């Protein structure tokens, strides 16, 4: 009896070991092969010689820019959607619809966003295939992330704080502004960071909304096409005329993308755990 | 649904039973002391005197139980009044028993002296007082306010009898110096019986308080 249980537990532990092992193996493999490639030149130079040499600067630039644009759109929308859901809308039909919409957004496959971006932003609104269309498309995709983590943060603000505020004669907006939002700030921050991390690595939604295979110049307006790190990796690995030749560049680019997204996620995790500890103390 | 306080109720019931037992003992003590007096029965008198220890112990016991019940069960309202009533009533009962002892002691003294006159009024006083005590205890058991009130009214009869006995014995004393000691003791006996009735009235007042929450002196 006892022994059998130990065996069961061993298997569950083994599962953990396998997952964690694989994760580390991925990181290990990418770092091992990528680290040699990374240099200042690699970061700061454009690709050369039909993208078999040189760096990834335009792709990095494009990625960061579209992510920044996305952030400008997604944070206010996401945060205030959460504020509405949690502070104004409880019990209202409208917020049921919003919630349904958010859940829905979260479940839509990224390629469908790509289709929508193409159909709506690019063609219907005539924003063209460019940074803005891509940023908005990815923004919609990460919107649930921001809403959910903000809402979680708002929910974690004990209701008693709000009641106390009202009972002291504060108005709703005063309560939100002076008590709820400051208290939820770390959570909101986490949401924003996570959305950046997520948005940065997404490729499918931008496939048809503005990413370019190669551009000799940097985008100069939000309507311009751009290069993108993730897309770059995809192209190099599958469409490049000489996959073997560009392998180091592929690894290098992947490592850069991984570093970016990982560091963001780790920051988010740190904030969150600090927040949790703070709440307990 | 079972009464969630039934254990407390049980304890309260025990306490009431204890009180009743104590009341009965006190009553018997008075009864016996007067019998001892009339029949010049020193053994009976002695019995009353030694029996008082039991009553004293019951007094202490019940009081301690009351205090424990207060400490442990936080009685309120009527429960509390009941305990208060018990607390006060046992004092009265204890005093009644003490008076029985006092009478018994006198009975012992008078046993070897010639009778002054046939006892008429004293047995009547005794009977009356004891019937009051019976009613007091019954009213306690049945929480019968009316009975308690009626009982208290009879205290006046006892008082009247006492005055009568007092005056009569006074005459004896003035007429015959030899009668002085005996008459004096009998006056004391009458006086004690009168006190028994007074204490009994107190018990009645307590019963009324327990049931109605109003405490009023009835025997002013």
């Amino acid at each position: 009896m006892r022994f059998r249980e130990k065996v069961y537990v061993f298997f569950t532990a083994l599962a953990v070991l396998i997952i964690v092992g694989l994760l580390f193996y991925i990181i290990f493999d990418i770092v091992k092969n990528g680290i040699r490639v990374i240099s200042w030149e690699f970061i700061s130079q454009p690709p050369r010689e039909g993208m078999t040499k040189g760096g990834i600067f335009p792709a990095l630039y494009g990625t960061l820019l579209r992510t920044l644009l996305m952030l400008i759109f997604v944070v206010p929308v996401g945060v205030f959607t959460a504020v509405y859901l949690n502070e104004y809308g409880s019990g209202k039909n409208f917020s049921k619809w919003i919630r349904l919409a958010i859940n829905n957004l979260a479940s839509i496959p990224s390629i469908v966003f790509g289709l929508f971006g193409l159909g709506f932003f690019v063609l219907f609104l005539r924003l063209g295939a460019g940074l803005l269309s891509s940023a908005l498309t990815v923004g919609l995709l990460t919107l649930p992330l921001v809403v959910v983590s903000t809402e979680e943060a708002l929910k974690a603000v004990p209701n008693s704080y709000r009641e106390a505020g009202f009972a002291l004669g504060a108005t709703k907006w005063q309560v939100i502004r002076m008590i709820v939002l400051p208290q939820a700030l770390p959570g909101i921050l986490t949401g924003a960071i996570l959305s950046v991390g997520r948005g940065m690595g997404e490729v499918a939604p931008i496939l048809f909304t503005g990413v370019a295979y190669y551009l000799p110049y940097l985008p100069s307006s939000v309507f311009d096409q751009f290069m993108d790190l993730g897309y770059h990796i995809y192209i190099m690995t599958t469409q490049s005329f000489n996959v073997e030749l560009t392998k180091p560049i592929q690894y290098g680019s992947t490592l850069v993308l991984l570093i970016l997204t990982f560091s963001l996620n780790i920051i988010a995790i740190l904030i969150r755990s600090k927040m949790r500890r703070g709440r307990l103390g | 649904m079972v009464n969630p306080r039934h254990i407390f109720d049980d304890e309260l019931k025990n306490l009431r039973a204890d009180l009743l037992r104590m009341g009965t003992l006190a009553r018997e003590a008075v009864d016996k002391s007067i019998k001892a007096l009339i029949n010049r029965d020193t053994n009976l008198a002695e019995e009353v005197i030694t029996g008082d220890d039991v009553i004293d112990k019951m007094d202490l016991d019940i009081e301690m139980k009351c205090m424990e019940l207060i400490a442990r069960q936080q009685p309120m309202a009527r429960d509390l009044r009941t305990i208060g009533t018990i607390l006060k009533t046992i004092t009265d009962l204890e005093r009644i028993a003490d008076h029985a002892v006092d009478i018994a002691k006198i009975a012992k003294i008078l046993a070897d002296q010639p009778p002054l006159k046939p006892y008429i009024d004293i047995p009547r006083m005794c009977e009356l007082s004891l019937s009051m005590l019976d009613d007091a205890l019954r009213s306690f058991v049945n929480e019968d306010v009316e009975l308690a009130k009626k009982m208290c009214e009879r205290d006046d009869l006892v008082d009247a009898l006492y005055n009568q006995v007092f005056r009569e014995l006074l005459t004896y004393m003035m007429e015959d110096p030899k009668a002085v000691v005996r008459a004096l003791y009998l006056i004391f006996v009458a006086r004690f019986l009168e006190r028994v009735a007074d204490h009994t009235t107190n018990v009645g007042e307590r019963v009324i308080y327990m049931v109605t929450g109003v405490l009023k002196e009835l025997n002013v």
Partner: protein
Amino acid sequence: MEAKERIAYIVVSLLASVAIVSVILIFVFIAKESLPVFFNPEIKKEANLRIFFLTRDWQPIGLEPKYSFLPLIVGTLKVTLVAIVVALPLSLGSAIFTAEFAPRRLREIIKPIIELFSAIPSVVLGFFALMVIASWVQDIFHTSSRLNAVTAGFALAFAVIPITYTICEDALNTVPRELKEASIALGATKWQTTIKVVLPSASGGIFAGIMLGLARAMGETMIVLMVSGNAAQITWSFLDSVRTIPATIAAEMGEVAFGSAHYVTLFFLGLLLFSITFIINYIASILLERTQKRLRGER
């Protein structure tokens, strides 16, 4: 003061409606672009429901384009199945270990690490699968093609694991400590407690985790695009190359003429994908809510 309140309310409500508007627009636009399948006689000739579901070939480019969904559906199902078969035992096992058996310190390390998996962009997973997993699969199964359903499913599993793990672990964790203590105090062993009390209590959440993993696997684009081989064929073997619905859209949309039958067909595929994942997610969310409510002691 009153005005400020009103303004705040209006602004917040407007921003909050973005989500609703977006979902409606998404549905409307995807639907709008795929509607010609039903209404445009020109397009109906080339692409219609009968062709989609009753023929066997997907050959959109060529003189006589063939638009059968069946190979795509088969491909999608194959990779999804592989992904779930690989991911489920691993993620559920890990969830049980972390929630029930790991010492607290260890648990606080394991959980974020596994969750970090979800931070890996799918291109990166695809890339890794291409570089490493494909070779493993080839070595193990001696396949002709490095890129096949097993490779893709395996890579997809990496995407599925964090989702399923997180939801399962959360579900296990929301089982109140008092319940576990009650069971142990009744003389149950830890494993008995896990199997008889914790798992049943959390079953809704676990099921939801599986469903969401499933949805993720079906909708995932980049990984399969990179490692599935993208051959639209109907076979029984999992070691053949496959083409999935999302990968098809991703690969072909860039090169179609707007408004063409191909274009419309791709949008229709999008609509299909959208609907399937929607339904799965809907069921999962209902399950999740129900379990949470139950565990919170509401009826």
